[in-house]
């Protein structure tokens, strides 16, 4: 029997675990979870959730790949082409993931089940829609207990949303800093006084923080849940839903959000560029997954997805990614929007730094698109071209990259803000730097501009 590998993030829940075998991901359901799993599958709950697109479907295996005696069964969930982390999601993505969690909770109660955890790490995005990936999140509901994952929901979903709502800032970085959720006491301390005027936010954040503090100080620990009727639980869920609905991020026009609207006005430039990019992508053999880095609002990512590719669309600008997500919700394209600073991509985090993989090790793209990006790295972030080339080499075997010369209007804006010279930032300097890691397969000027598109193959 070939050896299987435990997934490094799947160790908390005794109900089962995820493992990898021959490049595929499976989930083992343990015998301790027998009745809960039977309830999920036989009550119609699973079918309901899968039909609504809320739960990732799976197929059951009829063998036991791990050979462990505690295995009840093994399931193979549908494959997702990319695993994103909540710290890489835009505001609306986190908000939709929060709402989905509450909808699943409400639906599961109809089948006498309840969610035993509420973490955004259990949610992924598939064709622009959130989906629960943890089939073992369900526990028996007896009609008289409070929600065990209430605090987790408040800290992992509600607190970041409320903070972003009241500050008007994109605070995705906070999710990276607090992988277990922002403590309600921390959130309450950071929120402005006016947030108390919202009944739901007052209850779930401010009151929650006060009561938790008192309870932690109390000598007598409350060990067993008190009776809590179904109506009360449903009211609580509605209230959490209202709190999430209350949170909205103001649409500000950011530096790059009108990039294409402006670019499109230049005669035929965008049309010609789209055609050229399409042709150059078609020249690369066996491309299934593309990473569009510096995707802006995803014009090229969506074009690639419409041509049957799976696309990771990453940009540092949270507003652009949020807008791309809103578009994807309507179009249901296989595009994964992602907020990512390429100069500091998401690191590996969690226990032993192995639980959550870094962006570079998750990005298994066959081709990287880097359009109108290199000047931001080289001049905006002072990354030498040879180091930029090394980054792309780490990410993908093929690279479609646009060189934006120093004379370009966009580059001039970046150069004007700097006191230093960039003598190597020339066409020849670019080719020299990238030749160390790549061979130049194609070199085409972008019509109506002084830019050049290169198709590079990793050496």
């Amino acid at each position, binding site marked *: 029997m070939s050896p299987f590998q435990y997934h490094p993030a799947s160790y*908390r*829940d*005794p*109900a089962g675990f995820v493992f990898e075998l021959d490049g595929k991901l499976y989930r083992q359901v343990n015998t*301790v*979870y027998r*009745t*809960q799993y039977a309830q999920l599958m036989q009550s119609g709950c699973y079918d309901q959730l899968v039909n*609504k697109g809320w739960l990732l479907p799976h197929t059951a295996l009829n063998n036991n790949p791990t050979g462990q005696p505690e295995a009840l069964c093994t399931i193979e969930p549908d494959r997702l082409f990319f695993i994103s982390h909540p710290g890489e999601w835009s505001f609306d993505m986190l908000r939709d993931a929060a*709402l989905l969690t509450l*909808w699943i909770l*409400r639906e599961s109660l109809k089948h006498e089940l309840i969610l*035993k*955890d509420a973490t955004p790490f259990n949610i992924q995005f598939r064709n622009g829609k959130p989906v629960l990936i943890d089939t073992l999140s369900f*526990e*028996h509901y007896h009609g008289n207990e*409070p*929600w*065990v*994952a*209430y*605090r*987790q929901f408040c800290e992992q979903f509600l607190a970041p949303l409320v903070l972003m709502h009241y500050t008007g800032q994109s605070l995705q970085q906070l999710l990276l800093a607090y992988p277990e959720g922002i403590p309600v006491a921390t959130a309450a301390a950071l929120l402005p006084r006016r947030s108390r005027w919202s*009944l739901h936010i007052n*209850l*779930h954040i401010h*009151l*929650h923080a006060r*009561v*938790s*503090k*008192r*309870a*932690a100080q109390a000598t007598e*620990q*409350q060990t067993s*849940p*008190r009776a*809590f009727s179904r109506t*009360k*639980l449903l*009211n*609580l869920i*509605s*209230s959490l*839903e*209202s709190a999430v*609905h209350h949170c909205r991020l103001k649409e500000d026009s950011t530096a790059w959000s009108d990039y294409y609207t402006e670019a499109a006005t230049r005669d035929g430039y965008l049309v010609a560029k789209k055609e050229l990019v399409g042709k150059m992508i078609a020249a690369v053999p066996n491309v299934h997954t593309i990473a569009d880095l510096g995707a802006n609002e995803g014009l090229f990512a969506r074009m690639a997805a419409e041509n049957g590719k799976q696309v990771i669309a990453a940009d540092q600008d949270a507003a652009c990614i949020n807008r791309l997500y809103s578009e994807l919700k309507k179009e249901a394209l296989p595009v994964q929007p992602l907020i990512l600073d390429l100069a500091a991509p998401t690191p590996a985090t969690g226990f032993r730094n192995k639980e959550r993989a870094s962006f570079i090790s998750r990005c298994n793209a066959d081709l990287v698109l880097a359009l109108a990006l290199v000047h931001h790295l080289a001049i905006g972030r002072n990354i030498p071209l040879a180091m930029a080339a090394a980054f792309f080499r780490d990410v993908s075997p093929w690279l479609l990259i646009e060189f934006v010369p120093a004379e370009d209007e966009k580059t001039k804006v970046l150069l004007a803000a700097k006191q230093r010279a960039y003598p190597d930032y020339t066409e020849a300097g670019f080719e020299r730097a990238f030749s160390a890691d790549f061979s130049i397969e194609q070199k085409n000027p972008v019509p109506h501009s002084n830019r050049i598109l290169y198709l590079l193959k990793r050496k």
Partner: protein
Amino acid sequence: MVQHLLYIDPGSGSYLVQIIAAAVLGVAMFFKNIKLYIKSFFHRTKKDKDTPPS
């Protein structure tokens, strides 16, 4: 016998907050229902956009 597999810590005071919150919400719902009842005399009730898609 049914085994419970609740591996997360509900958090100190989390159950108590839910009890208090539910009591407050119960009162709020009571008044909201009265308000809606009165409103429904004058307006056609609109579908709540908060509901999930089915």
